[in-house]
């Protein structure tokens, strides 16, 4: 039964992906959001105006294995050196029920410079929709309703200083490549020369 569910999810993902690609070509990926930061303040993407943004979706609950994406982003910031001040790096939770602002704050203490965002279920759903990110909640194998997992889009989004979409890179991209790409947006002329 579980096999069929997984298969169905894979097929669904493929279909969504194809549609997503078509819609992304329409330029609908806006990257707008209204969320809550780790201090409990409501923030929108406007708060980061003037900065190139690096955005990932995820959640902190990982009872099994934990992705190293935030580690990767931290290394990207290392690579950027002084230029890191021109970049806003954001982790948007797709699990607002468990990722409260306070919990996110504790968790992100291990990743200085990464901004944690969460919100109500509706706020998170709207943000994900605007990024064309997807997430699906799965019940836990142990049957405990508190132990659900969340499959989610794992790309690294790069948005421009106004919050418009620039690029999407795979979650396991090499940090130096991501930094290189960010620099190409920070200094477009240098790249052309």
């Amino acid at each position, binding site marked *: 039964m579980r096999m069929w569910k*997984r298969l169905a*999810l894979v097929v669904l*993902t*493929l279909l*969504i*992906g*194809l549609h*997503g*690609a078509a819609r*992304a070509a329409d330029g609908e990926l806006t990257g707008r959001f209204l969320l809550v930061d780790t201090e409990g303040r409501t923030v929108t993407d406007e708060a980061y105006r003037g900065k190139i943004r690096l955005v990932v979706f*995820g959640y*902190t*609950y*990982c*009872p*099994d*294995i*934990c*992705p*190293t*994406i*935030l*580690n*990767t982003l*931290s*290394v990207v910031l*290392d690579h950027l050196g002084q230029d890191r001040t021109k970049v806003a790096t954001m982790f948007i939770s797709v699990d607002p029920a*468990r990722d409260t602002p306070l*919990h996110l704050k504790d*968790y992100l203490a*291990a*990743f*200085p410079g990464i901004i944690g965002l969460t919100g109500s279920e509706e706020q998170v759903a709207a943000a994900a929709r605007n990024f*064309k*990110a*997807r*997430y*699906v909640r799965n019940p836990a194998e142990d049957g405990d309703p*508190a*132990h659900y*997992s969340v*499959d*989610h*889009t*794992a*790309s690294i989004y790069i948005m421009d200083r106004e919050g418009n979409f620039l690029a*999407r890179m*795979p*979650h*396991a*991209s*090499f*940090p130096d490549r991501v930094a290189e790409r960010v620099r190409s947006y920070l200094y477009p002329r240098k790249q052309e020369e």
Partner: protein
Amino acid sequence: MDRRGFIATLAALAVSPAALAAPRGTRGLIIHDSPKPVAALDIRDGEGKPAGLETLKGRAVLLNLWASWCMPCVAEMPALDRLKTSVAAKGIEVVALSLDRGGKLTVVNTYARLGIKSLDIRTDEARSAAEKLDAPALPVTLLIDREGREVARYVGAAEWEGPEAASLLDALAMGRRLTADMAPPQAKLTGPAP
């Protein structure tokens, strides 16, 4: 690491731009068809001195990658701590390499909290171990033979103190071929959700 091969794998995985992460991907013991070289890492000890795998030449190594923010990693540490002592006589070293950006301080605090007695402080000075060892998720434990080659890896937290692990570690120490029946089960982690 073979960057091109890694990228090809990623490309194959990225079946669509909206490909979802696969947190329930490969878990457990992965035995390599042929031993692989282990990328050079800048591992430091508690005093900031180099403590890389080259200092363990001639011994087999369990190289565990962990971080304080990774709940299953932290849950696995006490078992690895006990294992370090129990497998030393077999000629196996247990090395727990922290990927924490907080470096030594984070490790000291976590070890104190968990009551870790035997594991040494080992930090990833260049902050590149996850990338160099191709570890997109933690915990992961590399099984390295006496010649310094990665013969297998375990993705996720393992039951390191059961009969399967014992036969696995014996084979690793003796340089015998590892087989699937030696795969330790995934550790059942207890504790509250964060």
